[in-house]
């Protein structure tokens, strides 16, 4: 168990190092795409804690990315806050608004929660459009090139920043899921009466889930802004929210690994779909439906099934049965 855990840690460190080194040899466009994929991973990790673990559907996860993107950029533009401080602060703003939304939303379930979060998404879109003097409205907002100690951060530098944030996001989510915090998220989804009977404050846990997921999305939004160099409000609409749900369904609900796999695999999809770009929403929806019907727990179940089978073989070889 112990050895298994440290082997996983070692493999993850090697993976991160390989990604960091590999980025230096990739072309500019590939580095850009890889950065976008990792940003998707960060936001998917957050959404999965909320939807996959605590069981609350959200159709406004992209709004928290928008909040993080606008908040960090406006801090930089208007107050000269450096990007490395502005992005966490953008995340903090998202957390605050996430907690505000979570307070009423955690009392709702199913279709009502879906509608409430959809309403929130519309409100955020309207606010962005109406406050055009601050946000640039529908024309969008140009993001200043990030600089550190007076020097402009290179494209590869931004890639490394995103990689570091992504690694931190995945690592922290895994830690959370192996702690009481994560168990409480699962408990609230799996049995409300049993959770309450064990002293779990169901309402507070649901609220925490909203705030947590907003933190990941807010940071992802801030990173998206510096990587793309421009904020287009259309990028944070319903189709983005649906895309993020597709990430976690395809990867595996309630699994950190699922968030990573789903977001990484599906981030490559827009490139593959380039010739039929106008149908991409349709294709995403078909993928979502296909997985919900045929593989509802996502790609990670294939891995789990494989691991289980090999474990069964080991047991059989050792002459023991599985309990």
């Amino acid at each position, binding site marked *: 168990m112990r050895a298994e855990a440290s082997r996983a840690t070692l493999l993850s460190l090697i993976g991160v190092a390989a990604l960091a080194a590999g980025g230096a040899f990739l072309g500019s466009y590939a580095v850009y795409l890889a950065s976008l994929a990792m940003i998707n991973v960060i936001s998917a990790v957050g959404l999965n804690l909320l939807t996959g673990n605590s069981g609350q559907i959200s159709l406004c996860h992209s709004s928290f990315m928008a909040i993080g993107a606008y908040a960090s950029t406006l801090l930089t533009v208007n107050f000269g806050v450096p990007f490395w401080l502005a992005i966490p602060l953008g995340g903090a703003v998202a957390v605050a608004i996430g907690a505000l939304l979570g307070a009423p939303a955690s009392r709702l379930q199913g279709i009502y929660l879906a509608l409430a979060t959809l309403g929130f998404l519309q409100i955020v879109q309207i606010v962005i459009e109406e406050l055009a003097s601050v946000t640039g409205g529908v024309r969008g907002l140009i993001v200043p090139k990030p600089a550190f100690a007076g020097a402009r951060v290179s494209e590869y530098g931004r890639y490394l920043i995103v990689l570091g944030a992504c690694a931190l996001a995945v690592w*922290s*989510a895994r*830690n*959370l899921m*192996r*702690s*009481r*915090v*994560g*168990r*409480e998220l*699962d*408990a609230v989804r*799996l*049995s409300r*009466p*049993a*959770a*309450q*009977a*064990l*002293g*779990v*404050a*169901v309402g507070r846990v649901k609220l*925490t889930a909203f705030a*947590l997921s907003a933190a990941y999305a807010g940071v992802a939004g801030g990173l998206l802004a510096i990587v793309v160099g421009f904020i287009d409000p259309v990028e944070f609409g319903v189709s983005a929210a649906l895309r993020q749900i597709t990430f976690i369904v395809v990867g595996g609900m*309630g699994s950190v690994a699922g968030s990573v796999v789903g977001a990484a695999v599906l981030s490559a999809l827009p490139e593959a779909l380039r010739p039929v770009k106008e149908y991409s929403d349709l294709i995403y929806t078909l993928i979502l439906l296909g997985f919900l019907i045929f593989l509802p727990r996502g790609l990670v179940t294939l891995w789990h099934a494989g691991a289980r089978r090999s474990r069964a073989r080991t047991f059989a070889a050792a002459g023991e049965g599985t*309990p």
Partner: protein
Amino acid sequence: MTGERLRIERMSVRFGGVAAVRELSLSIAPGEIRGLIGPNGAGKTTVINAITGEVPMTQGRVLLDGDVVSGLPAHVVSRRGIGRTFQHVEPFGELSVLDNVLLGVGRHAPVPLFHAAFATPLARRGEASAVREALGLLERFDLVPYRDTPAAELPFGVLKRMDLARALAARPTILLMDEPTSGMSESEADRAVAAARALAESQNVTLLVIEHNMRVMMRLAHSVTVMQNGAVIAEGAPSVIQRDPAVIEAYLGEEAADAVR
């Protein structure tokens, strides 16, 4: 201290037009094992649900060690020391047996979210001590072989043991048990009764037990309260209750011959 662990004063619970519990009063002493019996639909489970705050009372009060706990949210009632088990267990099905029990344990030493996210030494220590405590409970209830098995895959008898271990992990001073031996074989039920008795005596946990199996009740309970149509119709020592004609007529019915034997 009033010499009462739990006191229920004129509890009524109404679901729309249906009175599930009517003006029920009950007093349980510390360390007592109290049985609660009655025919199906008498309102026994509703009494438990109302004590724990899962179902709102329409009238009356519940006091734990002299403090009013009725009206508090269910998780607060639990933290005050009222634990429960479920007739159908309500397992966290996808979680392992260890995680199920850990959910009962951890709240005595909550780890702040920040520490949990970054696996600080504080978080690691907290988790390690919670796991130790949970493993102790797994051992006590013969659950060690199932440690990493998802609860959904367990046979019902094992699930019942997990339910008890999980409830005790939260260190209740009174435990409300909803049919602890339902779905068990006779020998399993015997072991469960022995475990419950040992529990009440060694840890001074007070028990309120709903039980259909009269033989189990006779061996387990110090005294028995009989409910019918949401109200108490008799109360007393098991041997007396067993012979009470009103109880036999109201509750035992076709089981009477079996129970008296």
